[in-house]
């Protein structure tokens, strides 16, 4: 279920599994790199761009153990 934000900015969203998968894909796409490339950059601690750094910050822990690329 997705909760709409209220006007007082007490905002919590709970995406469905489908929404979450789509959001993860979107974040990876915005980075300009593939999952594997992002994971490799994270493992080496050297991101190619700030955009890649932020994408990993957003979804890294969710895809770190995922071996299906």
């Amino acid at each position, binding site marked *: 279920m997705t909760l709409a934000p209220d006007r007082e900015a*007490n905002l919590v969203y709970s995406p469905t599994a489908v929404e979450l998968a789509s959001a*993860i894909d979107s974040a990876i796409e915005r980075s300009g790199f593939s999952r594997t490339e992002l994971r490799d950059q994270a493992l080496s601690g050297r991101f190619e761009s*700030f955009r890649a750094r932020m994408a990993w910050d957003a979804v890294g822990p*969710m895809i770190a153990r995922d071996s299906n690329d």
Partner: protein
Amino acid sequence: MKQYELLAKAQDFASTTGGLLNATICDGRPITAVNTGVDGLVRVGHGLNAKNLIAEPIPLGIGKGKTRAWLTVSYTLRADDDPRYMAVESSVYALAADEASEHIVFHYDYERGKRDDYPDAHLQIPLDKHRAWKRLSRACGVDRDFAKLHLPVGGTRYRPTLEDVIRFVIREKLVDPRPDYMSAIERSETEWFRHQLRAAVRRDPETARLALEEFDK
């Protein structure tokens, strides 16, 4: 900690963080939380929703003046090892000179238990040229740009805070703050330090007991 309890704490955290930012250096910029449902992780930042997990840069400034600086504030939260508490899994504070974050001035990063041997809490400054580093790295045979260095900043417990970054952009006149910004910073900072102190005591209660015994003598 049950996930709904973590979500309630994350909501408080988002609300408090948004309150601090909007009481000091920006205007009407909500901080939202996304329950990912993966390993109990919750994302917190500006512009987050069910479709977007990447925190958006916050334009700095009050009212209708021209925006000159943007600050990205991003957190991933989870239950602590002691499940009664919430912990920050990772965070980023990044200052940019443009909305698209193509021109980053610096970013403070924190990643709990970073696996690459770099410090969990570090500062990166994307400088293209740094003459002293060029000289030193050449002398040491190190082939690495200054921008890729992870400058250590205080470790897990004493890393720079969002309040530090807010103070910095105000002190360096990168933004005109609200007139009463200082009380908001001090309130938030006091709470943060108390939170960190409680966490430090939980991690090392014996030293805390000894310190209190010395204090009571």
